[in-house]
């Protein structure tokens, strides 16, 4: 490697913007924690008005999905995601946004291969590998039940 190239690489490395890990983590912790806290508040609320445990289990994620979809549609979710990073990605809000945002962006390409296909660009792999893992576990669980 030439001297200039080495010097250049060193220069690039120095001036490449390092994302401040600690600050990023603090934001992710705060935003992610808050979304989960909202989930818990909803859970308490739904249980409080006498809904069954099964219903509450289904309704809490659905509620967060609905809220995420609204925020995505009015363009606020992007700003929250920019601030919260993984704090918005990891909760079910990240999954919902990954479905809703491509739907809005790809509608113009058509309802079938535009919106219809693109909504699964991230949700597809998540559902695929999650379901596969659960099938494998199901078989193992069944075999273990035989003994």
């Amino acid at each position: 490697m030439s001297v200039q190239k080495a010097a250049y690489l060193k220069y690039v490395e120095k001036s490449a913007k390092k994302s401040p890990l600690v600050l990023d983590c603090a934001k992710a912790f705060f935003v992610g924690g808050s979304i989960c806290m909202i989930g818990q508040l909803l859970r308490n609320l739904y249980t409080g008005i006498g809904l069954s445990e099964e219903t509450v289990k289904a309704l809490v994620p659905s509620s967060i999905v609905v809220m995420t979809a609204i925020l995505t549609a009015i363009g606020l979710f992007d700003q929250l995601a920019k601030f919260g990073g993984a704090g918005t990605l990891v909760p079910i809000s990240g999954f919902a946004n990954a479905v809703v945002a491509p739907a809005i962006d790809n509608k113009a390409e058509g309802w079938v291969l535009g919106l219809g296909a693109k909504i699964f660009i991230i949700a597809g792999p998540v559902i695929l590998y999650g379901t596969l893992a659960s099938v494998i576990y199901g078989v193992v669980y069944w075999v273990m039940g035989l003994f």
Partner: protein
Amino acid sequence: MKEILYAFLIGGVLCTVAQILVDTTKLTPARILVAYVVSGVLLTAIGLYEPIVKLAGAGATVPLTGFGYTLAKGVEKAVEERGLIGALTGGLTATAAGITTSLAMAVGAALISRSKPK
């Protein structure tokens, strides 16, 4: 009150771990989500995730590892009730509400809002 605090803390920790992965590795968000869901299934299978759910409630079920937990729990229940066929039906049945709401809301949102120039 205590469970709300634990939901905040555990949910926050799960997100912080992902943030560290985003900042220090080249993992794309999609890969992180897949890793979280599969980890959720695995951790539930070996019995490590259930205690976290008991402690932190939504702090453990709202993150995508909780999606994996729901898949695994659904499969357990279906296998107990219906035998081996439950391995094929349990996962998606248990997660149907979240997935279906996402799909329906996506079409709804696409109907009412327009893509903005980036």
